[in-house]
């Protein structure tokens, strides 16, 4: 037992030293979880605003494309009516060029609508990834917080099992107890020494 006690005291000091997170750091860590919640909300609102703006820009661009298509159709109708006034040889060439341009405008409009839809989808994906990333950062912090707060977990065990209010209280008790234990050990040792000497006499 005499050999065991100093080892236990050493173990106690080492372990208390290992989980000695300053209370200010623990408080900051808990506050940080709240800051992350605020940041997550802010990013959500920004993402919603960005998506809304992207969808409005897409709608405006699509409306502009419809407008161009209508004006193109009206112009080509007029041109078609005027084809008869052209010289015979030119009528066919102009008609072919006109039809080819109408088809190209139609293909370009379809490709433009598809590109706008892809861009909005990409913006949506990226903003979702940003939101997910901030959420992930909170998870990282929760993992760090679990470590920082682990002394509290230890204290909970102390309260439940050993009926001690805190690690600090137990340390104080142990510090008070140790000199008495050491003193008692010295007294016993002296007593045994005396008894041994008595035997020798």
């Amino acid at each position, binding site marked *: *037992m005499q050999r065991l*006690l100093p080892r*236990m*005291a050493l*173990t*106690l000091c080492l*372990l*208390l030293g290992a*989980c000695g997170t300053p209370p200010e750091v623990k408080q900051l860590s808990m506050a940080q979880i709240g800051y992350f919640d605020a940041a997550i909300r802010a990013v959500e609102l920004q993402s919603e605003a*960005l998506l809304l703006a*992207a969808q409005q*820009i897409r709608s*405006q661009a*699509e409306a*502009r*494309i419809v407008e*161009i*298509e209508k004006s193109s159709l009206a*112009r*080509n109708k007029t*041109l078609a009516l*005027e*084809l008869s006034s*052209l010289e015979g040889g030119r009528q066919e060439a*102009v008609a072919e*060029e*006109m039809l080819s*341009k109408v088809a*190209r*405008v139609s293909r*370009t*409009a379809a490709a*433009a*609508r598809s590109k*706008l839809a892809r*861009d*909005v989808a*990409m*913006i949506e994906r*990226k*903003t979702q*990834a940003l939101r997910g*990333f901030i959420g*992930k950062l909170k*998870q*990282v912090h929760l*993992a760090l917080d*679990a*470590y920082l707060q*682990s*002394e509290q*977990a*230890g204290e909970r065990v102390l309260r439940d*099992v*050993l009926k001690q209010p805190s690690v600090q209280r*137990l340390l104080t008790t*142990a510090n008070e*107890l140790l000199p008495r*234990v050491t003193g008692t*050990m010295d007294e016993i040792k002296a007593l045994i020494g005396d008894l041994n000497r008595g035997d020798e006499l």
Partner: protein
Amino acid sequence: MTREELAAKIRALAEVATTLEEPDRSLKLGDIDQLEIELAAMALEETRARLERVQLPDVEQIDAKIAAARDATKSHLFRVDAFNAALGLLKTAAGILL
């Protein structure tokens, strides 16, 4: 060339085309229609390009690090348990001796 610069060039071309005689006027304006539609399709180009430049760390790597940190914390809690057990022993030993 920016989108605004492109729009200005297309407007300038359209102005020149309107001065032509038919049927060239309508045919040239048909080419300009196509350019205008392509320009409208670029409406979200800049926003998309900016977002594409944002490089986020790999989420799987973050998850792996979170899992490793949680495991390490668990083993720390086991050490706290060991510490509590050591304290219990110390208390019992002191109680026996005193």
